[in-house]
């Protein structure tokens, strides 16, 4: 009972945060709303018994990635977003579109998923289980992920880390 109430409350917070993210004009407010979404998602994971995922969600998303987001927004000192004609059209088309999409997906999932009930904590969520899965069942994807991270770093270094070379001769403009 307590679980259900908490689950609903944090679900509502997550949705509200997501909506606020879109409504806010200032990028830093949007970023903070996203943090709220991440944090409430993590509580949802915790309530579902996935302790490890919950903690990692906070540490990685809210604690590391979003910090960099905020950092970049602060560095760029991005101002308020301005409404253009394009964005007005996007609002007119987008809001009904999103509503219809959300209702459709929700309806499909609620009406037709043949899911049953599972007691909290019955599913694997303990760190030991996750460790076993990562280093045994999913060893190869896990190792490939390390290459993926390496590539991301390399990409950043290649594209941003070196001074742009000047060509010896000017190029013909396309």
């Amino acid at each position, binding site marked *: 009972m307590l679980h259900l109430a908490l689950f609903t409350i944090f679900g509502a917070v997550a949705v509200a945060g997501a909506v606020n993210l879109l409504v806010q004009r200032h990028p*830093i407010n949007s970023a*903070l709303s996203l*943090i709220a979404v991440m*944090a409430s998602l*993590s509580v949802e994971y915790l309530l579902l018994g996935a*302790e*490890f995922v919950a*903690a*990692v969600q*906070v*540490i990685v998303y*809210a*604690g*590391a990635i979003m*910090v*960099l987001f*905020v*950092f970049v*927004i*602060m*560095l760029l000192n991005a101002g308020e977003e301005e409404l253009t004609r394009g964005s007005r059209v996007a609002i007119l088309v987008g809001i009904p579109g999103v509503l219809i999409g959300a209702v459709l997906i929700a309806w499909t999932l609620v009406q037709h998923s043949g899911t049953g009930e599972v007691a909290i904590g019955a599913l694997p969520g*303990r*760190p030991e289980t996750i460790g076993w899965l990562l280093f045994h069942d999913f060893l190869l994807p896990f190792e490939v992920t390390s290459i993926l991270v390496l590539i991301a770093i390399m990409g950043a270094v290649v594209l941003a880390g070196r001074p742009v070379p000047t060509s010896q001769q000017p190029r013909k403009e396309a």
Partner: protein
Amino acid sequence: MLSITTFVIVSIIKSVIAILLLLTAVAYTVWLERKVVGHIQNRWGPTRVGPFGLLQPLADGLKFILKEDLTPPHVYKPLYIAAPMIAVIFAITSISLIPIGNWVSIAGIHTPLEITDVNIGLLIILGITSMGVYGVALAGWSSNSKYSLLGGLRASAQMVSYEISLGLSLVGVLIMAGSFSLRTIVDAQGGTFWGFIPRWNVFHGQEVAFFVYLMSAFAETNRVPFDLPEAETELVAGYHTEYSAMKFAMFFMAEYANMITVACLATLLFLGGWHGPLFGPPLLQGILPVFWFVLKVFCFLFLYIWVRGTLPRFRYDQLMAFAWKFLFPLAVANLAITGLIVALRS
């Protein structure tokens, strides 16, 4: 098992006690710092209010509350107000998962000496402390002042960088204990080698990890010699330049609360938690673990202050190079070697 009602009541009581204890500890850490730094610099420190200046924290608190709360005109108000609260809330929350002693039974209620015992306690503490950076970053940005912004940027870059080596230095300990639960980690450090050296992690193969943890902890809490975010010679007061009165006090409290959390964690993870020699009558035996714990935390805090009174400040590029080029590889090496040894031994 406790019934829901007793559970809630016990939890509330424990929370209140924990918060009161923490705030008192924060206040007296400040006093301790002023006193010790004073003696290091060959002066007395606070002496006027109460015996040995012991009532000084009260006077300071009163002053902060009564002071005029200035809000500079160009700040981004919602975040300017929220930032100190964020900082202090996360700083205080993390204490709730720190166990300060074994289980106790009072009036038939058997309960651990912490607000709640979670089996991934350490991860949650790391998560909460990693959120604390927002307070500093947002304060710097929303103040709309160049010193604040620079301080905020420095703080967030520094905290994100040192968080990595901090986290990695803990993994060795986790591997030795095989658990994320702080209680299990402490239990794994019971006993002695050859009857006199305690089996604390710091004497048990994790010396390097402790060193890395110590360095990262100083940087995480923005303390000397890594207090670049509030370097008064370059940035006035860094991210809290534009803050005054209670809002400023909140940052102050957050910083000291973070120091205490870090000291508690060091005690739990490396210094054997509440383990120590037990003797005397049963009542004394019940109190002694808590005493040992507090003593170790005190020593760690004293180290903080001692360092502050002794060392000069780093330059910012040195600070970053130290994190990424020295501490991080060292932590990884420690992790690899610990993992190898544990794997070979089992």
